[in-house]
């Protein structure tokens, strides 16, 4: 039983996760041209690489990924190489996830890059809340996806989509030049959706640390104790009181 678990965990870390992340990295830059249906491969722009780096640093800060344990002197050399490749795949998948939702050109691209940069930069220094970070990132990715693949795609459509007609009627005589961009087929949106789903799936499966479960549990307890020690005495007492109250309730129920 334990042997199976260890094997499955190893397969997840060394094979499945790199596959998921590399597939996301592959599909993140794929676009399908509207007129010729030609497949285009768009390499990640510099801003996507910067955003990916900032996101990984936030993952490290939130302890969602403990880089020190993924690449540790305690691991074997081969294991470290494999882990490094997995983390590298995570980096490129992150960059391509940004690439797939960032608008291609003009004002929308500039705006969304600024929003992403602001959110990630702010979280590097402000008081940290993992849930808030994940919520704001999910909202930002979701909004960027909707804006790029639904609203802007309709604007860029060669025949003029519903939004273009609506904007044309509302802003008669005003140029839409700042919103111009390449026209892509609807399948580009589906590919982007699949990319984000794969990326989210990879993040969900990614363990914070590659250590085995028992070691991981011990580590977690030790880490909690370390965090408790860092709290001010009054807050520490409050936590301990709350925990013992919870334990008493549990005993009464039993």
């Amino acid at each position, binding site marked *: 039983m334990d042997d199976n678990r260890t094997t499955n965990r190893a397969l997840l870390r060394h*094979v499945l996760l*790199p596959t998921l992340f590399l597939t996301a990295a592959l599909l993140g830059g794929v676009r399908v041209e509207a007129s010729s249906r030609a497949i285009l491969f768009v390499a990640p722009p510099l801003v996507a690489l910067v955003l990916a780096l900032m996101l990984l640093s936030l993952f490290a800060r939130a302890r969602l990924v403990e880089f020190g344990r993924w690449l540790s002197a305690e691991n074997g050399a081969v294991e470290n190489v*494999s882990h490094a*490749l997995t983390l590298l795949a995570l980096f490129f998948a992150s960059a391509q996830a940004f690439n797939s939702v960032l608008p291609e050109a003009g004002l929308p691209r500039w705006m969304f890059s600024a929003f992403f940069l602001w959110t990630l930069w702010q979280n590097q220094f402000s008081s940290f809340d993992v849930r808030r970070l994940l919520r704001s990132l999910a909202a930002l990715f979701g909004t960027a996806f909707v804006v790029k693949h639904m609203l802007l795609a309709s604007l860029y459509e060669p025949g003029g989509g519903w939004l273009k007609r609506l904007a044309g009627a509302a802003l008669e005589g005003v140029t839409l030049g700042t919103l111009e961009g390449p026209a892509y087929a609807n399948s580009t949106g589906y590919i982007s959706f699949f990319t984000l789903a794969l990326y989210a799936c990879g993040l969900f499966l990614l363990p914070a640390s590659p250590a085995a479960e028992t070691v991981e549990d011990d580590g977690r307890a030790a880490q909690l104790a370390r965090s408790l020690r860092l709290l001010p005495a009054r807050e520490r007492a409050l936590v301990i009181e709350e925990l013992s109250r919870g334990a008493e309730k549990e005993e009464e129920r039993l």
Partner: protein
Amino acid sequence: MRQRLIQWLGIAWTILYAALVVWLYAAAPQSIAEVKTQASVAAGTYEVDRARFDAGRELFLREQYAAARAEWERADPARRDARTQFYVAYSFYRQGWGRVYSDDALFRQGLEAADRALALSADAPLSVEDPELKIHSAAELRAELEHGLERTADDFNPLKVFRERK
């Protein structure tokens, strides 16, 4: 032991898959068919479709130049065959050649194809032995196309109308 095997398998698989991703972005094939073509070029198994090439040559000899080029495009989709590119350049030359003046746009495309042919035969000079052609080397064809694009006083020579198409 099994752990070690999985780690090695993971490393090999990740490197292979990452190489495929990088290759796709570098080669940028535009369709699934092009993926196959580019893969065969990378593997060194790429070959020109001989039947399509011959069909293109038949059209070329009947002066159906655009149709001939379409056949050669299908015969050599990766544009990796020097001989086919030579014929493509020749078709641009013959179509663009005029007794009074030449079509610069066609000659320019011909020049590009001749350059491709020359680049693909960098090891040895390309010479095509075809009795239906008057120019047999890619370098000569390139010079002819280049000459057609130049503006010289000779362009105003009325005797130019008696020159022969090669």
